[in-house]
């Protein structure tokens, strides 16, 4: 599977997650978000950027708990909650925000 964007073909898995992490850039992220029905605002980028930074260090998306706690530390208590994250990413921060951030989805007993 994959999609075309700006004359380039991007390879994805069957659920639309980028296969090659190096393919990611902000424009591609905006494009994936659009297909998910999400208009990227500064608040959306805060999450995506955190996910990408975390991934660069740990090679996996963070546990949701960590995401929430770190968001709280960085952006204040009103942004450190599950409800806030779901408001930004209705299909779930783990799945939807990771997809936009160009990260693979975790697999196994999760």
């Amino acid at each position: 599977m994959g999609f075309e964007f700006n004359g380039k073909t991007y390879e994805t898995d069957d659920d639309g997650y980028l296969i090659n992490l190096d393919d990611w850039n902000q424009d591609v992220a905006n494009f994936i978000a659009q297909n998910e029905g999400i208009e990227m605002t500064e608040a959306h980028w805060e999450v995506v950027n955190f996910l990408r930074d975390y991934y660069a260090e740990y090679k996996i998306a963070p546990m949701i708990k960590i995401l929430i706690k770190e968001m709280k530390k960085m952006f204040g208590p009103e942004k450190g909650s599950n409800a806030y994250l779901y408001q930004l990413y209705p299909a779930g921060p783990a799945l939807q925000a990771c997809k936009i951030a160009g990260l693979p989805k975790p697999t196994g007993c999760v």
Partner: protein
Amino acid sequence: MAKTPKPEELSKIDYKLPEKGWMDTPVEFKEGMYCHGARPQYLETVDFPNPRQWSSKKDEDWKLPENWKEIVLNGMKERLEKYRSFRLFMDICVRCGACADKCQFFLGTGDPKNMPVLRAELIRSVYKRYFTASGKMLGKLAGGRELTLDVLKEWWYYFYQCSECRRCSVFCPYGIDQAEITMIGREILNLLGLNTDWIAGPVANSYMRGNHLGLEPHTIKSNFDFMAEDIEEVTGIKVEPTFNRKGAEILFVAPSGDFFGDPGTYTCMGYLMLFHELGLDYTWSTYASEGGNFGSFTSMEMGKRLNYKIYAEAKRLGVKWILGGECGHMWRVVNQYMDTWNGPADFLEVPVSPITGTRFENAKSTKMVHIAEFTADLIKHGKLKLDPSRNDHLKVTFHDSCNTARGMGILDEPRYILKNVLNHFYEMPEETIREKTFCCGSGSGLNAAENMELRLRGGFPRANAVKYVHQKYGVNMLTNICAIDRAALPTLMNYWVPGVDVAGVHELVANALVMKGEKERTQDLRLEPLPEKVGAENV
């Protein structure tokens, strides 16, 4: 992804038989009922055949090797010679039908090919046609059928609609183990590169990095630091787990889901608190960092390759024995295969609890003890100070995980523990628990997202039993001792029985555990406020 129907719709199950006989009813692939095909990178990692980009939709080209039929038949022949059980199970079924309505996937789908007898017949018919004299001569009359592409696709569809839970085998008068038939079926499919992406991914990760999620050592450490922070917030006590520590007495192995996803992390916090309180001389490993074994959902050989690291790490670290966490299929592998696959572990000692002195004779050959046995023994000897009233906000039932229940007989230990750490325990109906437990619907690597309808249907009988105790007694917590359960059951409960949460047994142990020097607890492990105190501490 397929849209999942509403519960009112999904619960209308059609048990009507198709108009024609099963051999003349071609398989139809329904969206939401099967998984994506394995991507090439995962297969390449473990040197599996035929890595390629492909779609598992029925009408797509599956990009099989030209001689796929020969590969399948040779693969069957090899396994018929190698596994006596496989040949026996092919030969002895008398089609009595005792298993037919025992499978949760049949009960939840109404699809006759999910009757265990018929699922087995999908491959048995090919066995008859190509490997028995009567079938070679009489073909269909003797129950044989040609191996065609349609038959192969039918195998794919139905061998990944079986969770290898073995409920049917409990009722089979011959003891035919349908899980083994599914395992061999999947093994043969894997000769053609036909695995699911959801199984192949964890296999590749586990092979390269030691665990299904692919967590690297510093990531594991960081997740534990995070859990330790929460433990400190709840108890005021700083736990300091060690990793890869040579000379520790015990190596502890748990499913990696327990240090990544909720509610598994609460179970993991439970282990950490218990071991800290005991002053146990144990270590975690970032190499043997997975109890689960998605390799065993792929092929015997792959199961063995992934299982290898547990003994290898025990040997490298020089521990005396191994303790294992709340994982399901890990225990089927440990209890039934590990010591013949990768043993004998003669460098280890027969496990003895350093706290109670109990010698675990039952683990004499594997040298690996289940944490439910370990903790039940602690309680039996009065070694834990427990305050069950801290779990008074919970009305609890226990879901026997298929593999620990039917694969090794862990039935009473978790119940004994639960009844000591909480005050409100209620059993689900008898025919849905213990050896007869229903599967969560997502075992054996079926816990992907794209096959959600299958999971909800397969989990329907389990959910029904939970609903019964939820309505009758107000049960609001479904406990278990399996990481797939902890991952799958919350979704199942949200869908069928909202208001019921999911927890591992050791989360509730740690809630109740009165630790030396702890501050007064006001929160449970989920950082939720504790119920108001009523009675005195129960020691």
